[in-house]
């Protein structure tokens, strides 16, 4: 049962990609870097290349973490919807299969200054 109701009932989602004027949402989370309280919400066009996403908004947002400058993007491990994923940096988000509200998570083994301080 999709909802308990007195008669047939159909809901309308409020966050459809059509509402974002040609852009889409991408969620990005730096694994084990919880200085950032929640995964980032980034609003970008699907034609943007993966490299532009990484070098642009993602790199800018990561700066407050002491590990930010030490990240070697060629060694980063990626998860998309929690499954291993190998991005093509020069292809667009759409060509990389990164749809609206996709969750990316990236793992930087060996880098965890704020965690290791404990």
């Amino acid at each position, binding site marked *: 049962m999709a909802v308990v109701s007195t008669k047939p009932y159909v809901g309308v*989602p*409020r966050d459809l990609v059509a509402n974002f004027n040609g852009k889409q949402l991408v969620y990005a989370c730096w694994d084990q870097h919880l200085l950032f309280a*929640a995964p980032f*919400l980034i609003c970008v066009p699907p034609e943007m290349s993966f490299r532009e996403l990484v070098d642009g908004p993602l790199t800018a947002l990561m700066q407050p973490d002491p590990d930010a400058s030490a990240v070697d993007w060629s060694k980063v491990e990626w998860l998309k919807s929690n499954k291993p994923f190998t991005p093509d940096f020069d292809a667009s988000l759409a060509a990389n299969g990164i749809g609206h509200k996709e969750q990316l998570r990236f793992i930087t083994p060996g880098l965890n200054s704020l965690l290791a301080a*404990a």
Partner: protein
Amino acid sequence: MDMKVAKKKLALKEKYRLLTRDLGWEPTYQNKDEIYPYTKYEGIRIHDWDKWEDPFRLTMDSYWKYQAEKERKFYAIIDAHAQNNGHLHITDARYLSALKIFLQAISPGEYAAGKGFARMGREFPGVGTQVACQMQAIDEIRHAQTQIHALSNYNKFYNGFHAFADARDRMWYCTVPRSFFDDAVSAGPFEFMIAIGFSFEYVLTNLLFVPFMSGAAYNGDMATVTFGFSAQSDEARHMTLGLECIKFMLEQDPANLPIVQGWIDKWFWRGFRVLGLVSTMMDYMLPKRVMSWREAWNIYGIENGTALFRDLARYGIRAPAGWDDAEKAIDHMSHQFMLGLYQWSFGTALHSWIPSDDDMAWLAKKYPDTFDKYYRPRWEHIKKLKAAGTQFANYGLAKLCQTCQLPIVFTEPDDPTRSAQREGEYKGEKYHFCSDGCQHIFENEPEKYIQAWLPMPQLFQDPIGGDLAAWMDWVGLRNGKDNGDFDGSEDQKNFDAWRAMATSNQ
């Protein structure tokens, strides 16, 4: 000659019967199902409405008398508070953040509960239920009103209080309690009673009111203590209504048990998420702290909750499904929320701050297994960033949970180093959740939750289109006054200056 004989006073029970049960007309030309159209579709089976007892047996005439007396006392104290500059008697202006959370997030919830109970007073067929729900509806409106009046005196002197009504619908952290109450009010009458009457008023209310009211008393805030006392005698009645309702449902038909258990699971988890911010208030925002969130949970969650569910076990009810996950979150949540509030403080109508060394020593003592290990390094780094002139602000905004609408600040229940990640698809659309509890609630009624108005994604849609300044105007947030770090804020400067005028001759 006729002797005048004094009429006997009606016994309480008789009076209650005459003033309530006799309202229960048997309709003659209308079908009862059409008069009460919402009592069956949830699947709850009721065979005898007269079995719903109201142990208080309060009638409207005595209700008005009691409440009027309480109002007189309340407003006398509020007047005295204003005339004696009560706003300067609080321990420190940081305390105001707790009051701002209360006014922005809790008082509108009281009003929503009032609307909900007014509806239930109409929709339940039993007269005892109708009368009890109507009284609770009036109580809830009175609570919202007395809270707003009590805090209006602070609004004359401090920032962040003025736009609470707009914030209720628009501010990102206020949509959390709003969606909680919208979810309850748009459910059927029985689910509403489990949501508000039982889970919120009975299971969780002590975690909300005791910390706030003791917190107010510890921090010199007479106004808040007064509305707490004024509401307290109502709460006993509300808790009884919630408990009576659940027992009534369970006693009427064994088929009701799985439905009721499902609602308890759902509303415990929703309530636990909504009350999360109380943890931050207790551990971080009270200059003079009452007890830690962990200590409050041990008393009001574990001790009281365990006793309650042991009592309900004879009906076949077990503890809520999310109970173990809640326990695992207790030592983490206040820190996770405060770190979030601080890094997004450009978008909050309250101030947050970096805990002082004293604060951190207290937190380490109260949270020996988690604070130094996970959270102190983050605060120390944030302190360093501030000292270097690069104060930490996270403009990445946040992924929100589709069900509870909170930013997903939570970690995996068994791994505090990893952000909690849950997602699912419905009709080709992706949805994200903060926990198994919230994902389960969504999957049970997806058609309801896909409509959630999530404030952060909305910020990037029309008409705001990602413009932060336009968003601030729209939520009534005055940049540089209502938001940001407490350190250097107008509230801090004004409080210190006014207090100095009262205690020195300079």
